[in-house]
């Protein structure tokens, strides 16, 4: 079972002449099936950490392991392939493709694996039904509410059955009621489907739903 291991990771951004350290020798272990909330003030490096775990950014030094894979060793094509199989992303602004319908958006990751069109549609439908949008599959993103859009995004994240879900402020742009629905959904994915979830959030209410809360400040864990 997958676990996330972040060991002594440093990340330094270069902006103009200045070196800006974002993560400073950070280590974090997330065991398989955990639900971790990452909290901390703006600029504390939460999103950067999430990006490193998801393999969409590379650490300046240190190692990130997800499951058996040390993702620092993968590059380009292999990393993209790995990401498609192992990681599901959920964004604050949902990032759905506006010209695709809900179900087409969910089908998108499945294009990367060999699968018949029929099977693809079936799995996308299952995922949408799981998030409670079985009756909205042909709607375009702009025809959906924010909460519904985020649920489509979650369906897209889980459709290829990754073991790890990474969520960046998934409720940040939603009203309280919708946010509650999304958090319930994440909880259910964690408990019922044993997804390992790492969620960045500002919201203490959201963080309460996690099994564990980790605080970041100025690039290091503060608790």
């Amino acid at each position: 079972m997958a676990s996330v291991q972040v060991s002594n990771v440093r990340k330094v951004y270069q902006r103009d002449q200045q070196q800006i350290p974002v993560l400073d020798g950070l280590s974090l272990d997330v065991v398989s099936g955990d639900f971790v909330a990452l909290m901390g003030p703006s600029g504390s490096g939460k999103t950067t950490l999430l990006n490193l775990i998801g393999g969409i950014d590379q650490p300046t030094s240190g190692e990130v392991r997800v499951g058996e894979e040390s993702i620092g060793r993968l590059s380009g094509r292999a990393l993209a392939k790995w990401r498609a199989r192992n990681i599901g992303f959920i964004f604050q602004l949902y990032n759905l493709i506006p010209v695709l319908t809900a179900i087409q958006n969910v089908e998108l990751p499945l294009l990367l694996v060999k699968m018949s069109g029929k099977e693809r549609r079936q799995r996308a439908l299952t995922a949408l039904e799981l998030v409670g949008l079985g009756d909205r599959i042909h709607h375009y993103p702009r025809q959906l509410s924010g909460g519904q859009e985020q649920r489509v995004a979650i369906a897209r994240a889980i459709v290829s059955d990754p073991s790890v879900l990474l969520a960046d402020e998934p409720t940040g742009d939603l009203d309280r009621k919708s946010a509650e629905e999304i958090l319930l959904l994440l909880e259910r994915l964690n408990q019922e489907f044993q997804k390992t979830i790492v969620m960045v959030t500002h919201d203490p209410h959201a963080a309460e739903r996690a099994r564990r809360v980790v605080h970041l400040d100025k690039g290091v864990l503060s608790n």
Partner: protein
Amino acid sequence: MQILLALVALIAVFGLAWALLWAVGWGLRRLLGRTTVSPLTFLFVGLTRNWIRTVLTVMSVAAALFLYVALGGVLDTLKGAIQVGSEQRLITRNGISLVFPLPIAYRERIAAVPGVQTVSCSNWFGGQDPNDPHNFYAQFAVDAATYFPMYAKDVEFVEASKPQVQVALAPGVDPALAAFMSEQTACVVGVKLMKKMGWKLGQTVTVKGTIYPGNWPFTIRAVYRAKVKSMREETMFFHWQYLNQMGMGGQSFVGVYHLALSQPERAADIAMQVDAMFENSSAATHTETERAFEAGFVSMYGNIPFVLRIIGLAVVFAILLVAANTMLMSFRERTTEFGVLKTLGYSDGTVFAIVLAEAAVITLGGGLLGALLAKSLVQKFDLAVLPPMRVDWSTVYGGVGVAVLLGAVSALIPAWQAMKLRIVDALRRV
């Protein structure tokens, strides 16, 4: 006037195409919403995203390719014009210039040259439509008894008057010409000229002479159609004898001699022999194959082919800029989206291909539209100073090739940017 009409037609066609493309876009979106996603649908969905822009770009590429292929068609026509005319026949003209005549006495001497089968003659009449001097068409006075047999394989007669008296026809003369042969003031007219002027068989028409002054009435006794490309269908033929009597006071000047050869393989030899024979006469001759003679007219266009090429290049370049601009804007708008795709696990190469493919579809679509439109429209055009317009398929293919290349070049920068795009940067822009 014709060009103005063509322009209106063209605008109408473009308007129609616009409406059609709108409908296609609407239908496409409807259709695509129902399908499961595949790389192909993804491509088309990308095109429908900003349908106005897609249509605008397709149309501008189509406009460019229309021009490019139409100009290419003019070049094809010019190129084709130097390949018409037989290499089996010779034309003998005055050595100084075509405008000087040759004496009729040369006829017998040319006919005596070994390898020459028959000799005919024709004179450029240079008449005008008395109602509209700018309405140009060609008239030739020919020695009909030898001329039409010589060109029997090149023309067929589609309409002819019945002869009023029975006459014995010279050997090889089409029986359809019986009425024409028996009437001094008769003429033979091409089908296109009949249509253009709205003439009827049997009608008497007037030509205003410029070289041979006066108003010349001719009665149309036969209508011909060309069986080969070298023969124009906008010409009027009448009797050289009549011109000789009425226009030259019996001085019997000949514009050019037409030589049919019994030994066509010796054409070059025979031409030299003929010219040598008259080298020191009052009128030296210049003899060349009919094809070379026709080509001589084309070379008068001088720099025009070069100018057309330059314009073609400018057109393509201008549209390249338009297309590149569109691609860049389309890419910039979708930066986040590409970031998302990459996050989902799409490789750099796939993203590169998506951008390129989209550009290819746009330019290929526009290219095909414009090139085929040009092919079908330009060939309907007929300019009096040129042989019938034509557009070779190779020009059409070449045009479409240029369009695809245009797409590739214009999409290269955005495709490269999309490929090199770092997910972190793409998502930060949100």
